């Protein structure tokens, strides 16, 4: 059983989401968007939070590469 590292997928997805949202938040936010969210640039802040989450998972996967039990003996069939 050789499983790929889920932490890298989480880092990839939220890294991508984070960047997209930060770009929208900084460059493409209209006054209507701001008014809808009570003056908060929610895309920007949510994007930053997601980027941080991605960075944490990427760092974890880099520092502790062992993920699943890859060398496990198959269990005897019952």
């Amino acid at each position, binding site marked *: *059983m*050789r*499983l790929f590292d889920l932490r890298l997928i989480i880092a990839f997805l939220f890294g991508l989401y984070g960047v997209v949202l930060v770009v929208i938040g900084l460059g493409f936010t209209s006054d209507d968007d701001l008014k*809808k969210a009570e003056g*908060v640039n929610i895309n920007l802040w949510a994007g930053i*939070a997601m980027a941080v989450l991605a960075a944490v998972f990427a760092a974890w996967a880099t520092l502790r590469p062992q993920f699943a039990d890859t060398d496990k003996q198959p*269990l005897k069939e019952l």
Partner: protein
Amino acid sequence: MSILAEADLRLDAGPIDYALLIIYFVVVLGIGVMARRSVSSSLDFLLSGRSLPAWVTGLAFISANLGALELMGMTANGAQYGLATVHYYWIGAIPAMVFLGLVMMPFYYGSKVRSVPEFMRRRFGKPAHLVNAISFAVAQILIAGINLFALAVIIDALLGWPLPVSICVAALVVLAYTTLGGLSAAIYNEVLQFFVIVAALAPLTIVGLIKVGGWQGIVEKVTDQEQLSAWPATELTGINSPVWSVVGLVFGLGFVLSFGYWTTNFAEVQRAMSAKSMSAAKRTPIIGAYPKALIPAIIIIPGIIAALIVPEMAQLKSGDTSGGVAYNDVLPLLMRDLLPNGILGIAITGLLASFMAGVAANVSSFNTVFTYDLWQDYVKKDRPDEYYLRVGRLATVGACVLAIGTAFIAAALGGSNIMDYIQALFSFFNAPLFATFILGMFWKRMTPTAGWVGLLAGTFTAIFIYAISEPSFGIELLELPGQGASFLGAGLAFVVDIVVSVAVSLVTRPKPDSELGGLVYSLTPKADRAHGTTGEDAGWYRSPALLGGGVLALTTVLYFIFG
């Protein structure tokens, strides 16, 4: 389905929202394709080769439950009943999850069974096993269909796709990744889905809180102050006496219903069985309990806020039902009112991901029970493992096709009512099942005959209570609106199951001790129940008992603050 009634719920999704949604589905399918490479036996496919770390199985454990019913249902309860809804989490889940990890998991994981029904077979023999395996398999297909239907309704409402198209598309996506990657793909996606749901709900809650003026704003605006205290929750239980309402909550919801659900429902327990060691298996539900204790903050609070700031919802709450919305519409309405494009796409993704993971959990637990407990035990024994891997894959396809069928039945019957009925029926199966399990695990004298007789007696008791309290049946001897009837039914089912099991055991023959090692407390050496404390399981912070105590303490503190 009354989930989304006539009101204008169409969200203003733009190209960027669709793009974020599509990225998610590409990743989900990619996980299926990649997980396929790691599957070389039926155990790999159906139990992830028992190789997953505890944080993964722990998050999957609560994600598998975080489907349509939970998201729509609990935000709706938040809008309707207010803060009392926290009982479903703090008393209705946390103690049972800790109990599963510390007390029951040693037997489930230690006996190396591959499913909950298999434990039933080894403890009580074939009649009890067959009853359990068949009722579980049928219930999973029905629930998968209802989840699929709920998913299709929301796709229809949010994005405007016709119902049959969205049912089939959703089923195909689930089918694709579970057939390819089996349980690993389902679990990986559940973990991913957990983070996406948090990413969807947290911004919604924060913007909502700012709009309403913070917690202070909620306290000032809520007219019925009882909605801001958790106890005694008389509205929620439908029991007028505060004392009995609390008894109903603690014994009915907190003990029987929740222990029955969390400790015997294989769709949940399967996640822990796929952990890589006894220690990781014990920690699985306990690690899941931490986010479970905190997640009401982003599920119930949006419900409370919606009742204050969404005009249609406030109108409904004041008793005027002409607005064309239902309490179930809380999330789409808040998304419509508060989220700009971009984060709106994440929120839509989160909702769809949640509903889909519900279907995947039903399908992936169904195929294990079908393959090992029905096909291997009763139809074709002693075939090579590749044969059962193939059966597992075909069972997945079969489950998805059947679920499309039950989804259309759900659509034809009109949805929300049968969702309630199935949930009620399912909880009636779980309460007696819990009684049988717990007695069988701690009393070696309990006989195989008592196993199935007690189970049937408990189930019939629950059905009887349901029948005499459900208004639509016309024999309403008990008047218990709200959740009171199912609390009472489950409680009585538990008691009857225990009494009947003890009585039958005293007059029938028990299994010899030699066949019960690893299955019964007094016949399992302590070493077999203990977990390793070396390597990946080392460290005081990985102690299941300590983690379990920690989450119980956290929950107690939360009750003191918000009770």
